[in-house]
C-alpha cells in the first residue's frame, strides 16, 4: 500500500500526472477516486483493495473531459491489457496515461484463471504464474453438443437484461450500443432473445475483451459470461494468432482486411 502511495505522490508532485485514479477507502469500502494535487492530504486513504473496479472506465470519463491532461491509473495485469487496447482503439492518448502496476495475488489469479495476472511492472504484490488453460473452458468443451446447449440456454435465460456486463466493461466505450436497437433485440421482453443477445456481445468482444472478469462479477444472475469471452479470446488466438491486449501493434482480425489465411474447409469443419 505504502509503495503505491509513495509512487502516486511522487508522480503528482513531479507533475508527471495531473490526477491518479485508484481506490480510496471511505466508510469502510474501497471506492474509485481520483487523487490529485488538490487532495494530496488524503493520500494515505489510497488502498489497493482486494476488490476490483473498472478504473479504466473512470479514466475514459476523466480523460474525455480533460484530453490534454495526463492521468495515472492503478492497473492489474488485465487493466494494463485494457490500456494497450484502449490506445489501439484510439480512446486514450499514448503519452497521457501512466499506469501504476499491481500484481494480483495467487488466489485472485486462480479465481480469474488469468493467463498473466501481473502488469509489465508493478509496485505492489508478487508475480504469480498465469494459468495457461482455463478449467472452465475444458469443463464445457468436455460436454457433448446437447449438454452444452442446455447448459448455455439455461444460463442465458436467467438474464434480466440489466446491461450490467456492458456498463461495467472497460472495453465497451461505444456511444450507443447495438444491443439496444429495438429492431435487433425486442424491448420489454425478458429474458432477451437468446442466444442472440449474449452471442452478439461475445462477437463484439473480439479484439476487445481483456479477460478482467468484471462483467461476470457485475452479473446479478451469475451468468458465466466471462467463460464465453475467454472462449472468444481462444478462438481469435487459434484462428488468427492474435492475443488481445498483448501488443500495441496490429489490429483486431475482424477490423482489418489483412490476408486470407482460412480455407472454406477450416470454416465448414
Amino acid at each position, binding site marked *: 500500500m505504502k509503495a503505491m502511495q509513495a509512487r502516486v505522490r511522487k508522480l503528482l508532485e513531479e507533475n508527471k500526472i*495531473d*490526477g491518479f*485514479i485508484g481506490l*480510496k477507502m*471511505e*466508510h*469502510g*469500502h*474501497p*471506492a*474509485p*477516486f*481520483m487523487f*490529485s494535487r*488538490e487532495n494530496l492530504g488524503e493520500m494515505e486513504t489510497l488502498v489497493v483493495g482486494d*476488490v*476490483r*473496479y*473498472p478504473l479504466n*472506465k*473512470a479514466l475514459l*470519463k*476523466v480523460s474525455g*473531459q*480533460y484530453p490534454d*491532461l495526463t492521468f495515472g491509473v492503478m492497473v492489474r495485469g488485465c487493466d494494463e491489457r485494457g490500456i494497450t487496447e484502449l490506445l489501439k482503439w484510439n480512446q486514450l492518448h499514448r503519452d497521457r496515461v501512466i499506469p501504476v502496476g499491481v500484481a494480483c495475488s495467487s488466489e485472485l489469479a486462480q479465481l480469474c484463471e488469468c493467463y498473466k495476472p501481473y502488469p509489465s511492472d508493478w509496485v505492489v504484490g508478487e508475480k504469480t504464474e498465469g494459468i495457461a488453460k482455463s478449467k472452465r473452458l475444458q469443463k464445457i468443451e468436455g460436454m457433448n453438443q446437447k449438454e452444452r446447449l442446455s447448459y448455455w440456454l439455461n444460463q442465458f435465460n436467467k438474464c*434480466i*437484461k*440489466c*446491461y*450490467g456486463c456492458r*456498463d*461495467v466493461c472497460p472495453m465497451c466505450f461505444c456511444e450507443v450500443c447495438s444491443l439496444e436497437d429495438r429492431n435487433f433485440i425486442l424491448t420489454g421482453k425478458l429474458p432477451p432473445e437468446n442466444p442472440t443477445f449474449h452471442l452478439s456481445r461475445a462477437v463484439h468482444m473480439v479484439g476487445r475483451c481483456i479477460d478482467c472478469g468484471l462483467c461476470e*462479477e*457485475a*452479473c*446479478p444472475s451469475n451468468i458465466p459470461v466471462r467463460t464465453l469471452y475467454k472462449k472468444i479470446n481462444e478462438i481469435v488466438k487459434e484462428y488468427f494468432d492474435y492475443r488481445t491486449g498483448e501488443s500495441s501493434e496490429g489490429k483486431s482480425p475482424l477490423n482489418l482486411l489483412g490476408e486470407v489465411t482460412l480455407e472454406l474447409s477450416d470454416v465448414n469443419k
Partner: protein
Amino acid sequence: MEYKTVLTTCGYCGCGCGLYLEVLDGQLVGAQPCKTDSVSQGGLCIKGWNVHEFVQNSERLTKPLIKKDGQFKEATWDEALDTVASRLKKIKEENGPDRIAFLTSAKCTNEENYLLQKLARAVVGTNNVDHCARL
C-alpha cells in the same frame, strides 16, 4: 477538476442495492455497484445502473403545468394547488373518497411518501395508496 464516487443506496425498490454515484466536477456521470455491499454484492438491475440519469436531466419539470385545450401551459403553484384541491374535493363529494387513488414515487424521500399516504388516508379518507417499490 475532481472525480469521486459517493456510496449510496438505490431508492427504486425494496432491495436497497448499494451503489456508487460517480461525480465528475459536480456532475453525476455514472453509477457503479458497490462490490463490498453486503446486500447487493456488486449487482444492480437496469434501473440501478441508470439511477443517476434523472437527477440532472435537462428535461425535468421545473414549474407546474396545467393542460389547457390540449396544451400544457405553465402555471403558478397557487393556481395549480387550487385546481387540484378543488377537483379532488368535487370527486370526493360526488363519488365518494374511494374513487380517488394515490401513487407515490420512488424518487421521493420516505418522509414525502409518508406525508402523501397520510393525506390519502386522513384527508381524503381512502386506502387506495401504493408505491412503485411496494414500500
